[in-house]
């Protein structure tokens, strides 16, 4: 078949540009389909052209997508951060791109202060602020340690970490344990209630979960298939970022038999089960490292324009791409728009924060909103908005993830693998479902909503990818 069968009969036409041609074709009775083309939203046209013509791109993106889709995720251990991470004695990990204390937002400062108090590095808020400002405590992004953390993402050496492994690549990823809702460290709260919970998590929850996970594996059971739970959640009304109800219950169901088998006081076992069962976001800290495993597997593919990271530190939004390695492209974090708890309002919300946008980078969360119509009660909008959001995201992505099927869309795979070039060409930015932390340190969560990355990140990434393509 020559020219793809072009000459075999009257061709169907797909047209981009001025209408007169399509109108003339329709007048002839031709089959014409106009796309709604508009000038790219950003990016030097020369850069767009270089990337469009980069002969490495198609194959590189295919490789990146294949690795992403192939990655699995199983729960292999629960360990203190100091044992599994390259985390220094006085180091705190945080969400998002690199950050200096003086640029940190309220909730990030609150969480860092809370972690210093929790670790006993400071005995007062003032002391904590001093050692953080002086640089005595080092700050480093979670993402630099194969780790992700929701909201402030602050991870300290004594915190227990979910340890996940990709059986395909052998990669590992980590995330701390979710504290629940309300006044919590990740939202920037650090009062006694927060400290007490963190200590309980350190002394009771972590050890029990660790023994449960290890005990089950030692007894010859397969490790828990976390990716499998994520896939099932989407069939049960969760989107895996801001709605984790079904996933949390499924995770608890998987863990419960081994939890009750742990040799610990029954009051502790009961407290652990109550805590996990009472936390709608218990699963989030398992879902995030699952996404992280898949995106780390897709790293370092020269010529690929696919995102491997979207992440925010409360001040800046940062992205990385498979074609540009560990380089961050950043812009100012936007403030989410959504619904507020109690009488909090938009003026109380901090700019976007958290590594949890790894879920959207993986193609769930905001990208799979259609699977979770109930979420609009939490983040705002209507059910058709939720469906339309997922529909729109297909135009930004390179693939559909067959493992993450969306029932209401005829079990179509979720839109996966965000392409910087497509973002520029369509002018649509990725849609992220997110929690909102209070602007003032110590407040906690004030609401939930929708947010998009700043365009600047994508502008920089596009220019860097084009530069790499020119010199390739």
């Amino acid at each position, binding site marked *: 078949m020559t020219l793809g069968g072009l*000459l075999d009969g009257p*061709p169907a036409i*797909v047209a981009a540009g001025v209408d007169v041609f399509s109108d003339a074709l329709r007048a*002839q009775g*031709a089959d014409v389909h*106009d796309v709604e*083309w508009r000038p790219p939203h950003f990016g030097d046209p020369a850069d767009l052209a270089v990337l469009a013509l980069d002969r490495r791109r198609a194959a590189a993106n295919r490789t990146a997508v294949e690795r992403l889709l192939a990655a699995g995720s199983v729960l292999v251990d629960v360990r203190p951060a100091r044992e599994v991470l390259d985390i220094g004695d006085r180091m705190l990990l945080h969400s998002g791109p690199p950050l200096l204390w003086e640029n940190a937002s309220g909730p990030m400062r609150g969480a860092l202060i809370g972690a210093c108090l929790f670790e006993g590095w400071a005995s007062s808020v003032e002391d904590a602020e001093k050692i953080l400002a002086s640089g005595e405590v080092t700050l480093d992004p979670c993402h630099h340690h194969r780790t992700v953390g929701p909201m402030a993402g602050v991870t300290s050496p004594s915190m227990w970490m979910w340890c996940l492994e990709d059986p395909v690549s052998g990669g590992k990823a980590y995330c701390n344990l979710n504290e629940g809702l309300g006044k919590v460290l990740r939202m920037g709260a650090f009062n006694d209630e927060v400290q007490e919970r963190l200590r309980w998590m350190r002394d009771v929850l972590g050890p029990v979960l660790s023994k449960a996970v290890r005990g089950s594996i030692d007894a010859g059971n397969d490790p828990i298939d976390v990716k499998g739970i994520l896939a099932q959640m989407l069939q049960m009304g969760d989107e895996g970022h801001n709605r984790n109800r079904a996933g949390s219950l499924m995770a608890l169901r998987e863990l419960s038999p081994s939890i009750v088998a742990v040799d610990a006081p029954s009051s502790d076992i009961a407290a652990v089960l109550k805590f996990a069962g009472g936390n709608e976001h218990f699963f989030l800290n398992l879902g995030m490292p699952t996404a992280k495993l898949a995106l780390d597997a897709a790293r370092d593919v020269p010529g690929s324009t696919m995102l491997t990271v979207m992440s925010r530190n409360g001040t800046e939004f940062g992205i990385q791409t498979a074609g540009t390695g560990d380089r961050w492209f950043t812009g100012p974090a936007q403030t989410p728009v959504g619904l507020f708890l*109690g009488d909090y309002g938009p003026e109380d919300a901090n700019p976007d924060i958290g590594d949890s946008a790894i879920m959207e980078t993986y193609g769930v969360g905001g990208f799979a909103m259609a699977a979770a119509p109930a979420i609009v009660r939490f983040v705002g909008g209507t059910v*058709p908005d939720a469906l339309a959001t997922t529909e729109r995201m297909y135009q930004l992505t390179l693939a559909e993830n067959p493992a993450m099927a969306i029932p209401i869309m005829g079990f179509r795979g979720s839109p996966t693998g965000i392409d910087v070039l497509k973002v520029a060409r369509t002018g649509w930015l990725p849609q992220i479902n997110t929690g909102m932390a209070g602007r003032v340190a110590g407040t906690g969560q004030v609401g939930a909503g929708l947010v998009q990355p700043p365009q600047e990140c994508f502008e920089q990434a596009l220019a860097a990818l084009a530069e790499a393509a020119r010199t390739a």
Partner: protein
Amino acid sequence: MQVSRTVAALPGVTGVIVAMATPLNLELATNMGLAPEEAASPEQLLIGVAAEDDEALAAAVAAVETALAERERSTGSAEAIPQRTIGGGLAERTTDGPALAIVSVPGQYAVAEAADAIAAGRSVLVFSDGVPVEHEVALKRAAHDAGVLVMGPDCGTAIVSGVALGFANVVRPGPVGLVAASGTGAQQVSCLLDMAGVGVSHVLGVGGRDLSEAVGGLATLDALAALDADPATERVMVVSKPPAPSVAATVEAAAATLSVPVRSAVLSAETPDLTAAVEGLLRDMGLDVPVWPSRPGAAEAAAPGAVLKGLYSGGTLADETMLIAAPALGEIRSNTPLSPHLHLALDPSAQDQFAPGHVVIDFGDDALTVGRAHPMIDPTLRLEAIAAVAASDEPAVLLLDVVLGYGADPDPAGALVPALSAARDAAEHPLPVVIALVGTEGDPQGWSKQADALAAAGAAVFASNSAATRYALDLLGAAR
């Protein structure tokens, strides 16, 4: 939470919570001073309202009730999200049959859309101009590797299995395939073939630069191979403006290896005549060459010392005219001259845009179409030029092309006839008008209808541009 937001916006309302009575929400309500007096369980709806006065409170409670009673009207179906790129549009179409992408976006953005089509294994017609030549080469190489064709950029004319794309004429289906690096050239050839009773299988435009040194005939070679393999195509003709000699040789060599016979309608000083090429093809096919349709017009003689003023909308037709006329007339100045020293810079806003002497202008040249439609659609500049020729005291013969078909002015004679009549009335000297009318009877405008109208205004009308040119030369009294 949505109800909370609506009610909180009411005047006089100082605090609202409408939420499931979860421990978190109960705590939030307590902090707002709205804790329920009785114990609440998470499956219950917690409604707390604080207001400045009883009136505002009553209004808020009513608003809560209204909001809760209101059922969501939406059906749960998403609005359709139109695709924004060629890649998206092609992916959305599940047809396995022939498909073609058409790109007419601004040139700097055309590459990405065309690359989408190639990546999807589809051929693409790029109407856009202003595409850098290195991008054209990259696209055509990628298309070659993918086994598809890039028609263009700046490709205005094509016919694929009877579907006319851009500026093309209604011609009968038949055995002749055209590969055209020239839009109006392809229109002239396909229209003359139609008038001789011969149809075309396909007209594959390849863009005006395809036979340049830089592009090296990449699309022409692929189009030739495709037509060679096409069962509907029995003969092929290559139509082009004067090409780079080395590329012409490459194409000729490639054509010689094909099983389908290939005839050249590639313009050069030695082969200046598209009509002659068509006649050669007809003879190859064992067919009689018809008398090409014409209308005699007023047939008055030009004034002594008259010069040729050729005002063209088709670049290839302008080239053909200059190639035919130059041996008789000598130097012809042009904005698209045969040799650089004859270049005529044109300022479309200047009233007196003509140098004295023989001039041929291509109003379809990119420099004259910036910010305005092609002269086949918008005749303004050319009408002004006609008036300018009439106002000049230099005696002249006016030679024009009028191109019919899809995409062209629905009634070009409608605008030309009054302009020509006015010009002929106003001119100091007799002003003979000769028109090359490129089209077919089947065109929306109808060849005869247009020809009759133009002839009634005193113009001599020819279906063949070379015949029109030679007639103008006769009027000028120049020896051929």
